[in-house]
């Protein structure tokens, strides 16, 4: 059985994994870059090893250094978290070669799902619907034009090795096709070292709905229902909820079965996520599989009552799944808000810096997964996600009310955060009614950026408090001045006396 796990990650997810390790009596090993010596995951872990300079490429993405740390710590397993090396087949491979248990699927499964064209083909072969589009790489412009015309505009050009919106282009009409194709290829080459692109039909009013799956080494594969992730900004998820307000119980069942089928095509083991796109007519298509834990896994944990990290570790230990599909229910409703260090009024620019005060929201139905603390300086090198706020309530309406209450209580000062922006989303009619697709933020941006009406009394009081605080501050520094004045006057007196003495 696994007794010591190296967590090849940082931030909230590293701490979250260590929490489960501690509950399971497993020792945790942190790795950190030179910029992260004071980071929470280093403080929380039982052991910690430096793996290189601040840039991720030199530390959190440095496979050799991480494996060396695992060896030094005598760890018997590695948990990759999300991001960084979590979907790197070579890392999984090298970890296994070094005699370490990689807490995730096989290198083969990572590879197959990591290449989007291959994954599309696998799905098609297994009867899982994919977005209509090319079965192969668009190697030349003639082929491209022919395929695009067959599919029908608008189309999306996508990098086969892509992710995070890079190498992706929306093409609304034929005239835009060739220039967009060329840009996508060069962007993909620059970002991933591979210029393979393919095209897909562009869905109108799309929903991003994903299914959590768990598969053990004994052939048991189950799903833990969906997460609705359509509240996005630039392909970055902002809010997730489960159950989805958009799908029906019949669809849920069908999509869940398809998700299990998709995972089985690669003999998947561990925790993974099948992402689907769904159009406004409830047609759904396989988008991609994430072969790792997701940022938004806590909402699934909350409605099912399962600890997904514990399930991952148990699977890696070769244990059978502790629960069966028919035992799982979605109880109540859970919503997650991602708290980013960013300034939404300044084009969502990241806002690293020194965290001065934090007041965590507390009480019934809340969970926070964060990693920043008072006095911590958020480094500029990594993701701006600083915390996740998860609420649960019996109904969606109550969950929204609770989220509003929690966002009201949550105070982080010193840096700008997305808390006010998230509160505006909770106030928007479209979100409250559950009528939203991936264009939600774009479509509602004016409302979401609008300031609440100025309250004359509050403004006046704010002015007075500023006045008080400032004059207090001046008074606090006055004693020093008084002392100066005093010593100066003593000095004069002394001089005066001297004068007298010598006269």
């Amino acid at each position, binding site marked *: 059985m696994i007794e010591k796990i190296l967590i090849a990650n940082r931030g909230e997810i590293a701490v979250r994994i260590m929490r489960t390790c501690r509950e399971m009596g497993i020792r945790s090993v942190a790795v950190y870059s030179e910029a992260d010596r004071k980071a929470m995951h280093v403080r929380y872990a039982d052991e910690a090893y430096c793996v290189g300079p601040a840039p991720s490429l030199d530390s959190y993405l440095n496979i050799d250094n991480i494996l060396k740390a695992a060896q030094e710590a005598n760890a018997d397993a590695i948990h990759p978290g999300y991001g960084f090396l979590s979907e790197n087949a070579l890392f999984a491979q090298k970890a296994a070669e070094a005699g370490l248990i990689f807490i995730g699927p096989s290198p083969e499964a990572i590879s197959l799902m990591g290449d989007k064209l291959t994954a599309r083909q696998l799905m098609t072969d297994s009867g899982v619907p994919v977005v209509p589009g090319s079965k192969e790489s668009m190697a030349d412009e003639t082929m491209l034009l022919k395929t695009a015309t067959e599919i029908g505009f608008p189309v999306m050009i996508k990098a086969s090795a892509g992710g995070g919106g890079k190498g992706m282009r929306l093409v609304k009409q034929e005239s835009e096709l060739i220039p967009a194709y060329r840009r996508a290829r060069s962007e993909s080459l620059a970002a991933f070292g591979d210029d393979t692109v393919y095209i897909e039909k562009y869905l109108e009013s799309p929903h991003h709905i994903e299914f959590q799956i768990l598969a053990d080494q004994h052939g048991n594969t189950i799903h833990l229902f969906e997460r609705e992730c359509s509240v996005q900004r630039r392909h970055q998820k902002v809010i997730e909820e489960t159950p989805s307000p958009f799908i029906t119980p019949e669809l849920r069942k069908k999509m869940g079965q398809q998700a299990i089928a998709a995972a089985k095509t690669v003999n998947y083991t561990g925790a993974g996520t099948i992402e689907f796109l769904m159009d406004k007519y409830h047609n759904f298509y396989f988008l991609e599989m994430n072969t790792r834990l997701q940022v938004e896994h806590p909402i699934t944990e909350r409605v099912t009552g399962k600890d997904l990290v514990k399930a991952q570790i148990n699977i890696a230990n070769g244990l059978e799944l502790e629960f069966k599909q028919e035992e799982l229910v979605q109880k109540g409703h859970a919503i997650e808000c991602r708290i980013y260090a960013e300034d939404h009024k300044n084009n969502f620019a990241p806002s690293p810096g020194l965290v001065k005060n934090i007041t965590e929201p507390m009480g019934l139905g809340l969970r926070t997964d964060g990693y920043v603390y008072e006095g911590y300086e958020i480094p500029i090198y990594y*993701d701006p996600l600083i915390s996740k706020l998860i609420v649960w309530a019996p109904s969606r309406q109550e969950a929204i009310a609770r989220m509003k209450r929690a966002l009201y209580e949550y*105070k982080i000062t010193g840096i700008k955060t997305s808390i006010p922006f998230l509160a505006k989303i909770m106030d928007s009619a479209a979100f409250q009614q559950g009528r939203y697709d991936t264009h939600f933020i774009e479509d509602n941006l004016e409302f979401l950026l609008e300031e609440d009406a100025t309250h004359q009394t509050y403004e006046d009081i704010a002015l007075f408090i*500023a006045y008080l605080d400032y004059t207090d501050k001046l008074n606090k520094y006055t004693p020093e001045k008084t002392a100066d004045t005093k010593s100066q006057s003593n000095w004069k007196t002394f001089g005066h006396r001297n004068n007298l003495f010598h006269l």
Partner: protein
Amino acid sequence: MSLELKINNRTARIEILTRNGSHYRVLIDNKEYELDIEKVEHNAYSILHQGKSINMEMIEGKSANHYQVNTYNRYYEIDIIDAATRYRHHFNGQITSLDRFITSPMPGKVVKILVEEGEAVARNQTLIVVSAMKMDSEYKSPFDGVIKTVLVKEGQAVDALQHLIEIENMGKEEGKSKKGKG
């Protein structure tokens, strides 16, 4: 004390009428308020006004007389102008024009510098790219001008509001010599 408080375009005058412990009677632009004010945490104040419980966080900004204020549903920026500050502002206005410097609002790392000293640049031309938290930000020239000094190097870490590049405005006449690239 002679203080002016600025909030957006408003300049306010404050006069304390009476004070009794934490209870203040105060005139704010001639409107009278009765307030019970307690500082409860490092930055946080609790205010009672006609029974209403109001919380405000006063966060010190770039300087001691700049405040960022959070209330329940709003965010304010307040500047306090005392006699010394007024004098300093007046004085500074005479010798330097702040908008000649390109700065980044956040700490980051210089990814790319696209211009050289002495180079003529057009308004909105990208001069420098700074990366922070996985996002690249491009900074553009605010006017047609000439690059006077490049104050940073590629790969260098920079602080918030640090001067990155100095430009001379070609549309503006100043009583100083215009040096080319040294």
